[in-house]
């Protein structure tokens, strides 16, 4: 990985620093690693400057703290990424909402699938 990308990622200020244990990054679930990688990959591709993302993350964390929310670090990271991708016009809010619903329906469908063996049609 490009040193400057790693520098940007690894050197965020204390208030928004990535959780580590014993020097290593900690992901509580696979999606956390995924959303981490997603933000880094987008930045690497030039989709946004890292300081845009880190500012958004700072804002999300600050407002979450102010509201006394119990959201986790990566939940706030995800919100910041939403904010940045829509703010930078990479995605439209509508698209995200629609796609989220599709993915959710898919997940529910698969969950309900136990024991069924009739053919079904999936959305593309």
């Amino acid at each position, binding site marked *: 990985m490009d040193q400057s990308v790693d520098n940007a990622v690894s050197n965020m200020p204390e208030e928004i620093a990535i959780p580590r244990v014993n020097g290593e990054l900690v992901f509580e679930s696979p999606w956390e690693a995924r959303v981490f990688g997603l933000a880094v990959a987008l930045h690497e591709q030039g989709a946004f400057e890292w300081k845009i993302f880190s500012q958004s993350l700072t804002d999300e964390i600050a407002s979450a703290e102010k509201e006394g929310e119990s959201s986790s670090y990566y939940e706030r990271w*995800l919100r910041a990424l939403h904010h940045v991708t829509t703010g930078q016009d990479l995605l439209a809010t509508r698209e995200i909402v629609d796609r989220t619903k599709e993915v959710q329906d898919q997940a529910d469908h698969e969950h309900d699938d136990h024991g069924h063996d009739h053919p079904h049609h999936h959305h593309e």
Partner: protein
Amino acid sequence: MANEDPAILTKALESLLVEKGLVTSGRIDEIVKSYEEDIGPMRGAQVVAKAWVDPEYKARLLVDGRSAIAEFGFTDPHGAELVVTENTDDVHNMVVCTLCSCYPWAVLGLPPAWYKSFAYRSRAVSEPRTVLKEFGLELPESTEVRVLDSNSDIRYMVLPKRPAGTDGMSEEELAGIVTRDSMIGVGEAVCP
């Protein structure tokens, strides 16, 4: 969307961005992998795991640390020598730099602030057992606690003892239980 399962949200986000050609899933995989396995103390962990399973590698590592870690492609940016010392039941090694903050960057990444603190720098050499206790490690008096003060350009790393009960583990699994603290010598590797 505030109450959505974040895993669902993440998947939705990724799928859209991949569709638009702004990222690839493959690159995301690589990034996650490099942060989980490569950047920082995971390098040292790989070295330790190999030393645990491969006696010849361990022998090479203890004689010439710099060359042995170069076999993984790990090098110190200033070309510093690396000396790896082995923890046994007789000797427990612990690394410090009382004069500044020298640290085995090549295998452990950046040092945590506590390693560079005045408290650690001053106390590690004169009361190592007390310091270790603060880190949650108590050693019997029969084990010598040996503090390595990195006062030259040689960098030190500790090869922690392989914990009991890990015989069936693969090299990759073993790397997963080696902690950065155990490679500085303020902790031990523990069988999960």
